[in-house]
C-alpha cells in the first residue's frame, strides 16, 4: 500500500515539476478566472448582484475544465501514457497522481480567485471555502477519468466539456447551495457524498479507460 501511495505521489510530483518549469497552465488559469469574474460584473444588472454567488461556481467549473483539458495531453502527445500503463504500478495510481496534481493546480488558482471574488462582489463565507475544497475532490475525480476518455478520441478538446458539464451539475447545485443557503451543512454533506461515490467509481474504472 505504501508503494501505491509512493507511485501516485511520484506521478503527481512529476506533473507539478513540469508545471513549475514550464508555467503553461497556472498563469493561464488564474488570468482566465479573473477575466471571467470581470465579465460577470457586466453580465449582471444591479438587481441581479446576488446572482454573482452562483456565477462563482460556473467560473470554478470552467476553470477546472481548462486544467482537465490539458491533463493528459502531454502524455498522449509524447506517448507517455503507454509507458505509464506498462510500468509495474497499479493503473489507478496514474489516476490518483493526476487527481492530486490537478487538485493542487485548482487550489492555487482558487487562492487567487476567491479573494478576487470577495473584492469584486463583497465577501466569501467559510461555507463557500469549505464547499470549494469539497467540490475540488469531486471535480478532479470525475474530470480526470473523463479527460482520459476524451484524450483517446479524435475530437479531444471539444469532447471534454460535453462529457464533464452534465456530471458537474450536481457539484454546482451543492456549491451554490452551500454559498447561499442559511444552513450549508446539508449541501456540504451532499458534496461529500458526490465526492465519495464518484471517487470510488472513477478509481475502480480508470484502469479500463487506459488499457486496451
Amino acid at each position, binding site marked *: 500500500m505504501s508503494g501505491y501511495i509512493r507511485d501516485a505521489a511520484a506521478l503527481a510530483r512529476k506533473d507539478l515539476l513540469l508545471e513549475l518549469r514550464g508555467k503553461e497552465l497556472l498563469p493561464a488559469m488564474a488570468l482566465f478566472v479573473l477575466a471571467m469574474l470581470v465579465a460577470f460584473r457586466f453580465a449582471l444588472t444591479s438587481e441581479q448582484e446576488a446572482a454573482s454567488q452562483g456565477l462563482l461556481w460556473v467560473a470554478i467549473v470552467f476553470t477546472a475544465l481548462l486544467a482537465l483539458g490539458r491533463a493528459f495531453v502531454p502524455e498522449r502527445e509524447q506517448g507517455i501514457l503507454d509507458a505509464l500503463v506498462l510500468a509495474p504500478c497499479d493503473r489507478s495510481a496514474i489516476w490518483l497522481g493526476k487527481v492530486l496534481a490537478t487538485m493542487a493546480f485548482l487550489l492555487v488558482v482558487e487562492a487567487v480567485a476567491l479573494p478576487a471574488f470577495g473584492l469584486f462582489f463583497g465577501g466569501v463565507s467559510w461555507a463557500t471555502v469549505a464547499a470549494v475544497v469539497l467540490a475540488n475532490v469531486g471535480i478532479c475525480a*470525475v474530470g480526470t*477519468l473523463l479527460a482520459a*476518455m*476524451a484524450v*483517446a*478520441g*479524435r*475530437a*479531444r478538446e471539444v*469532447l471534454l466539456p*460535453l*462529457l464533464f*458539464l*452534465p*456530471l458537474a*451539475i*450536481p457539484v454546482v*447545485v*451543492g456549491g*451554490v*447551495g452551500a454559498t*447561499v*443557503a442559511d444552513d450549508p451543512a*446539508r*449541501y456540504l454533506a*451532499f458534496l461529500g*457524498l*458526490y465526492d465519495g*461515490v*464518484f471517487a470510488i*467509481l472513477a478509481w475502480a*474504472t480508470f484502469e*479500463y*479507460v487506459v*488499457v*486496451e
Partner: protein
Amino acid sequence: MSTSSSNRSGVILAVATFVLLGGGIALALLWAPEDADQGPSQRIFYIHVPLALTAYACFFWGAWKGLRLLWTREERYDLEGYTAVHMGLIFGLLTLATGSIWAKISWGVWWSWGERQLVLFLILFLFYSAYFMLRYSLEPGASRANISAVYALLGVVLIPVSFLAIRLAENFIHPVVFTRDVQDNLPTEMLVTFCVCLAGMLALAATLYQNELLGKRLDERVRELREVLQ
C-alpha cells in the same frame, strides 16, 4: 447464429408489444376514469410515465451490459450496451416531448423547472448525447468498448445523484409551485391501465432493442465478409 429461433422470439415479442400497447392505449382512452382535477389531458400520464420508466430501464440495461463487458471482456456486450443506451436516449427524448406537451396543457408553459422528472431527463439527455459524441470520436475496438462501458456506468450513478441535486436545488432556486402527484392513491382502474401501458412500453423497447441489435450484427457480418472478399 441461430437466426430462425431469434426471429421467432422477435415475432412473439412484436405481437406482445402490439397487444399490450394497443390494449393499454385503449384502456387509457376508454376505460380509465377521468381525473377530477385535470380532465382528459391527464391521460397522457399513461404514455409519459411508462416512457420515462422504460428510458430508465434502458439506461440500466446498458450499464449492466457495460459491467458485464468489463467483467468478462466478451465483445458482444459492447454492441448490446450501445444499443440499449441508444434506445434509452430515444425513449428519453419522447419523455421530454410528452412531458413538455403535458406541461403546456396543464400549466400553459412548454417548460417548467419545477417538474423534477423533466429536469432530470434534460440532464440525462445531455449526458447520453455526449455518449454518442464520445463513441463516434473513438476508433472501433477494445478501447472504445471499455470507455463506452465505463461511461454508461457513470450514467446510472448520475441518475440518483442528479435527482437528489434537483431536489436540493429547489430550496434555493424556486419553491415548487406546481404539483402533479397523480401517483398517490391511484384508483384500481388507473393502476391497471398504467401497468398495462408500462408492460407495453417495456415490450416495445425490447422489440426495438432486439431488431436494432439484429440489424447491427448483420451489418457487422456483411462488413466482415466484404473484407474477406476484397
